[in-house]
């Protein structure tokens, strides 16, 4: 699937998630399935929670016990392949990278979109962060239904 359409299978996606009981706090999910020469996720994490190692082609591995869900790796990944997620009651709170216009605004309701680019529900915009060090990649915190945990990936106006 991934090789032909760019969409990873559900079983592949799940390999990047921790047990759901770890998601009471936000954790980084690195959707990076292929060895490419790249390591900013690992070098940008202030908590040394992502390891790639000497050979920068290796896949990133997240230590979920060390990850604080700060979101720095989310806007540092050139592949826009990282997000964080936490579960709060019936909701999943995602922090995603976003580089398109128009920018979302807090409290707006946007469409929740899956990896196929299809609308799968609603996404409520909770925070929109853009600091100079993010270098024009927005960090958007959104709330979606908990059952979209493995499906949600981005937002659409």
């Amino acid at each position, binding site marked *: 699937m991934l*090789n032909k359409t*760019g*969409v990873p299978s559900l079983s592949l996606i799940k390999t990047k998630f921790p047990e759901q009981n770890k998601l009471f706090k936000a954790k980084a999910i690195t959707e*990076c399935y*292929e060895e490419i020469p790249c390591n900013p996720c690992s070098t940008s994490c202030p908590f040394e929670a992502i390891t790639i190692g000497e050979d920068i082609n290796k896949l990133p591995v997240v230590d979920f016990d060390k990850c604080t869900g700060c979101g720095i790796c989310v806007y540092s990944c050139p592949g826009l392949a990282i997000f964080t997620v936490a579960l709060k009651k019936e909701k999943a709170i995602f922090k995603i990278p976003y580089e398109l216009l128009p920018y979302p605004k807090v409290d707006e309701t946007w469409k929740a979109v899956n*990896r196929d*680019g299809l609308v799968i529900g609603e996404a409520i915009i909770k925070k929109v962060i853009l600091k100079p060090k993010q*270098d024009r990649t927005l960090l958007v915190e959104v709330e979606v239904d908990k059952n979209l945990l493995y499906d949600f990936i981005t937002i*659409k106006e």
Partner: protein
Amino acid sequence: MIFKDLVIIGGGPAGLSAAKIAAEAGVSCLIIERDPFLGGQLIKQTHMFFGSEKQYAKTRGLDIAKILIDDCLKHQDLIEIMTSTTVVGLYKDKVITTLHDDTYNKIKAKSIIVSTGASERFFAFENNDLPGVYGAGAVQTLMNVYGVKPADKVIMVGSGNIGLIVSYQLHQAGVKVLKVIEAASNIGGYKVHASKIRRIGIPIETRKTIKRAIGKDKVEQVEIVSLDDDWNIVDNSSEIIDVDAVCISVGLIPQRNLLSMIDIKTKFIKELGGIVPIINEDHQTSDKDVYVCGDVSGVEEASSAIVEGYYTGLIAARNLGKEHQDFKTLNIDYKNQLLNLRSGPFGKKTLKGLEIMKEDANVK
């Protein structure tokens, strides 16, 4: 005639990096660039780059260009820069003919580094000469350098990294990318790029190709067809789509026409993108005072072009009698960086190409 120790032809990442290190070693050099500005392909790259910190990973391509240019401007005493100047002739006695506006000039160099990059491959299909059929790089130049919207509705042919990234950048500029088609059975570029464009609603369809463009004075429609595993067109698979532009990104070819003027030995190495100059470990061609680095010696990435540039600048300076004060450490560091960049599945191709090259370099 102007006399120079080291002339660098092409001011992209490879050429700029070579100039920086050569100047650090104390060599006076001249960079000749055809475009009105330095930076090569980088100036139109709005996305963050891969690699590691040493090659400015996670920095946007156009900002990497600024860093490399600033590095050169720090050595203004040693680095001279000519922009809007094309090298049109290269002779065996190291004489270079340049063209600026309408004026030709001659420059004689002791050593020359050729870092002219690569050019886009053409692709044969019916009506591929209609206005509206563009190279993907051309579309990028139009929108990211000149701020001109190339079209409203496009189809992208080719799913290598360039096809995928340019699709993303078209979307950012407000252009609708209807789909990306790929003749091979798998996506060619990095899957993170593929996923990134798939989620914003751009489908990627493999085993499809463009049969013809349709239109009178410009592209109005395209016909695409499916291919079977033997690359034959599948019956009744034709699909006509309304578009106002077709973007072609089916690969790059090393731009070595200057090298052929001085009969540099070359070889066809598929893994490196086509016909490339045969070089030794020191990036010397069959003429030992002519060096090459970057995409002209094998199509790769900016990250490796930068490191190759540093390395070539280091060696060329030493051979001109100016050894860099950190020669030994840098020499090892650059080799390791290149090895590291090339040690994954994508880099294997380059390594294989370089192995094939070695066989010839040693015969010499």
